């Protein structure tokens, strides 16, 4: 089983626990189920007064344990116990004392927190070992860190070098740019792309050229004649055949990688689409409405999935006309689109309401018009490429990701924005690491009966 955690959380937990070296440290992680694994929602490092020594080994006092288990029970969380073995090196493992005591503690915890798995991790400066107890038995617990590649601690950052990429001439120039590790990381990813129109078409094309092999394509629109001026990969026959945009994107991918794994679960408002996105390595959002951005922001926070949002806009008239775009990258633990005030909740309410409610509001005269947005293929291409550079920064660690950038076409400039995570954010804070309990599938139209 896998424990998915924000890199920032892991690094902070690791640093705080090993600050006690050469003494051992201990913490309890509040974890949630997400898909087939666990998610780190929060953690508590035990202080000096809460730690004791039983038989010469580190232990958490009964009082601290009881209080913390009660908190976990109230919150509905599972427990992952963490302790350190400073100086053990990369081949760290559970001690004989751990091997004897952890099964007993697992039984105790699973009685206190019934129906939830119990995990245990031991960390050293350079490695970790993990184990998890479930109804099905005991199995290894691995850690999957998500966040800035450049900030990932070395003890967790395994590139998983793919020897095929090293010798594949197709990626020769890219490997010279990003290194074989970088290419291997691209190849290993599963990417979800939501929205396969003007920007999404460019994104899919670039991902396919870069060598991404696994895709979840979320969109259920069909190609229309008016899309041909901007839809990368489309042909003049596609609107005549009422071909789906997802089919066009899949065709683009398969022309470069015939064996690529491409899943097309339909729209974002379907359970299958939401479920598929909750387990990808990164979501690239290329949508034109804030309702979809809210859904993706909440899903990304709940399941700790990095979410790159690419948006373009052409507004106003004459000298007041503004043409530009925005690239926003949510890295779990960092600021989300709502923290950056990039989501208009009035628009969200309209985007997500049922057709029946909308028709009542139209009848009463207070529904906003849904206007047809102007579009330009080169603008889509520029902003999609900006987004893909951040994607490369995220995947390969080329440089740290710049989470928020604006592109102003009229001034021909890029503006880097400084945004802090808001402790009061109504989107990412309550959802953070909540996994399946966040019930993101409530946004699915096929979930409503």
């Amino acid at each position, binding site marked *: 089983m896998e424990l998915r955690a924000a890199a920032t959380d892991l690094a902070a937990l690791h640093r705080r626990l090993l600050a006690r070296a050469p003494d051992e440290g201990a913490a309890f992680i509040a974890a949630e189920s997400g898909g087939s694994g666990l998610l780190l929602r929060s953690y508590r490092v035990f202080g000096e007064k809460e730690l004791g020594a039983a038989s010469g080994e580190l232990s958490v006092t009964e009082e601290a344990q009881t209080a913390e288990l009660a908190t976990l029970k109230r919150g509905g969380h599972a427990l992952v116990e963490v302790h350190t073995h400073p100086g053990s090196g990369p081949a760290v493992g559970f001690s004989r004392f751990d091997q004897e005591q952890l099964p007993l503690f697992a039984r105790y915890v699973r009685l206190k927190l019934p129906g939830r798995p119990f995990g245990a991790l031991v960390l050293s400066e350079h490695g970790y070992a993990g184990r998890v107890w479930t109804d099905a038995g005991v199995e290894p617990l691995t850690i999957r860190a998500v966040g800035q590649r450049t900030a990932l601690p070395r003890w967790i950052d395994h590139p998983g070098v793919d020897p095929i990429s090293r010798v594949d001439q197709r990626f020769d120039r890219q490997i010279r740019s990003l290194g074989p590790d970088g290419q291997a990381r691209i190849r290993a990813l599963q990417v979800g792309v939501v929205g396969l129109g003007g920007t999404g078409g460019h994104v899919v094309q670039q991902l396919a050229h870069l060598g991404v092999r696994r895709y979840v394509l979320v969109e259920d629109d069909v190609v229309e004649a008016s899309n041909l001026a901007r839809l990368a990969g489309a042909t003049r026959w596609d609107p005549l055949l009422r071909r789906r945009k997802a089919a066009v994107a899949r065709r683009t991918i398969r022309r470069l990688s015939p064996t690529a794994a491409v899943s097309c679960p339909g729209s974002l408002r379907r359970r299958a689409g939401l479920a598929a996105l909750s387990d990808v390595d990164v979501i690239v959002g290329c949508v034109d409405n804030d309702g979809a951005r*809210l859904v993706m922001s909440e899903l990304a926070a709940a399941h700790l999935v990095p979410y790159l949002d690419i948006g373009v806009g052409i507004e106003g008239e004459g000298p007041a006309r503004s043409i530009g775009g925005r690239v926003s990258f949510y890295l779990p633990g960092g600021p989300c689109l709502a923290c950056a005030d990039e989501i208009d*909740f009035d628009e*969200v*309410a309209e985007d*997500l309401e049922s057709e029946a409610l909308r028709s*009542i509001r139209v*009848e009463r005269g207070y529904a906003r018009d849904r206007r047809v947005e102007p579009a330009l293929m080169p603008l889509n291409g520029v902003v999609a490429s900006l987004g893909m550079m951040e994607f490369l920064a995220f995947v390969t660690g080329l440089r740290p990701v710049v989470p928020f950038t604006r592109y102003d076409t009229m001034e021909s400039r890029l503006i880097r924005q400084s945004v802090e995570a808001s402790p*009061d954010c*109504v989107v990412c804070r309550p959802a953070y690491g909540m996994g399946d309990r966040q019930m993101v599938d*409530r946004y699915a139209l096929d979930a409503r009966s």
Partner: protein
Amino acid sequence: MHPRVAEEWSEIASLYPGVRHMPSPQRVEVDMDLEAGMYDRPGTSVAVLIPPGYRATSPDGFLVPSGLSFADGSGLPASDATGVGMPGWLLVSFHLIDESGASAWRPAADSHRGDNLIGYLASIESFLARRCN
């Protein structure tokens, strides 16, 4: 139950002891007393539809059983709610907006510090007590 509603549930239940959660469409139903002599009955059920984006997005309007009217026989500012999956109910026009027409809903990560369902229900009580003005 919607996770944000679940966070608020015990508090709602303490103020509205008969509160019900109904799944389809997702809504909260409470019983409210009405101003004596203002309506054709002393009390009514009130339902609030929970939008999927709640608390980021506000509820919009509320529902009362069909047939509720003012004491003089005139109707509430409402439409038939059959289309939203609530046959036998009326959807009352009620919006938390400022002078410019923008939403006045100001939620927070912690339901105790920003707008929430309890505040929304209190606003409905006040609206009903002002003869829907």
